[in-house]
């Protein structure tokens, strides 16, 4: 099993969080084709500017009733990783 296979699998809670993240991406980037919003894509690739990126994260956190320091989200490379960090905080709660 390659490492990319293990990375591409999402747990149930990650999948649920991703759906929320996805809805926030489409809310912020309203002209986006919904089919474009896949776990492998980064917000940058989807055309989000620096403000959009913060807004997506904040909206998702608001919906999940989470508060995570911006520094923890700074390194996420794509929507999957963003969903994973959010899901980890949900599980830890």
């Amino acid at each position: 099993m390659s490492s990319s296979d293990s990375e591409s699998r999402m747990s149930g809670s990650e999948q649920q969080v991703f759906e929320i993240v996805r809805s926030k991406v489409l809310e912020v980037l309203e002209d986006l084709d919904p089919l474009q919003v896949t776990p492998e894509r980064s917000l940058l690739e989807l055309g989000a500017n620096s403000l959009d990126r913060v807004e997506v994260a904040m909206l998702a956190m608001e919906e999940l009733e989470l508060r995570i320091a911006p520094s923890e989200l700074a390194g996420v490379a794509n929507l999957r990783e963003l969903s994973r960090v959010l899901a980890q905080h949900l599980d830890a709660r």
Partner: protein
Amino acid sequence: MNAPTPVVVTGVGTVNALAGDAPAFAKALRDGRCGIGLAAPFGETQGQWVAAPLAGFDWREAIGRHEGSLPECVTRARKVLRNNTPSARLSAAAAFEAVRQARLVQDGFAPERVGVVVAGSNLHQQLAWDGARRREAGGTVDPRYGLNFLDSGQVGSLGEIFGLRGLGYSVGAASASGQMALFQAWHWLRSGVLDACLVVGASMDLSPLELEGFALLGALGGDGYAERPEQACRPFDRDHRGFIWGQGSGALVLERQDLAAARGVPSLGEIRSAAIAMDGNHLPDSSLDGEVRAMRDALAAAGLGAADIDYVNAHGTSTPLGDRTECAALRAVLGERAAAVWVNSTKSLIGHCLSAAGVIEAIACLLQLNGGFLHPNLNLLAPIDSELRFVGRQAVAGTFSTALSNGFGFGGFNGSLVLGRGQD
């Protein structure tokens, strides 16, 4: 040395309590309509205020009107404004109308030669109020706050929407901000630093804090007028008791006359001159000396005298001291002409638009000069001055060529503009 090139206006736009664009504003002025009523601008829990709020402004609809002529600007505006403040959206709506009329973008005007000056400071007080309450309630800071609280952010927003890349900044001079912004832009064009400039009078999104602050200073009117709010704003009337807050924005495109003529864009009027005089005073008190100097300096800069002025758009806020001081200043400046020069105050129709007032009122001047009318003074039943020639309850028709437009701000700002009629 060559004389500086004249500066003309090639585009105007406004959104205010009476109108969603300049042609509708011209009609409302002529009809003498009143946009003042009883409103709950901060939600019902924060009480009702006598004010002139916007009625049903929808920024997407306002911007969408320009899809056909400025498609790329509209696309950028949708993106820029989605994350933006109510004041910035209002500024953009007025700017779209002005920029479209001036054909700056359509004619491919060199973007590095076009500036943006936003009139106003402390534009987003309501954001701070909302944010503090949200935080107090355990919520997070709005991710947009760090950008949106900056007044100067509107310069960037307008620059991005219209692709303007000359100099740009926001200027604060309280209620004289509009005069200050036009003063600045006029000088940049005359000195050759810019060829054209978008000047936007931005709406102040106040919170209950600022209105209560103004009330404590004794400057805010409306008390006792809940049953008849349309009568609360009465500039130069014996029963004047304070200013009434109005929401609104205005935009003008200024351009060198030779370039406008070469492009074949009609002149909507000329900025003949602009002058600022300071009082050296941090208080809200108005000053006869400062107001007289501003008007005299403006006339001198235009090479005109009182005999050349047909009409004065007064600052006229409906505050007792302010109105009295301006009457005395007008008598001093106009001298024997006081009986001949018409005076009105646009604030009796749309309230006091604060940082946007000077820009909106400059537009009101041009609309009146070009339309051959002067709008009524509402609620002026018993004038405090018997020498000045106030417009009555009906509009006056006639040929008017040259106007003086005043704006005076807390902190000793006195601004005066001389405006000339556009091409027939």
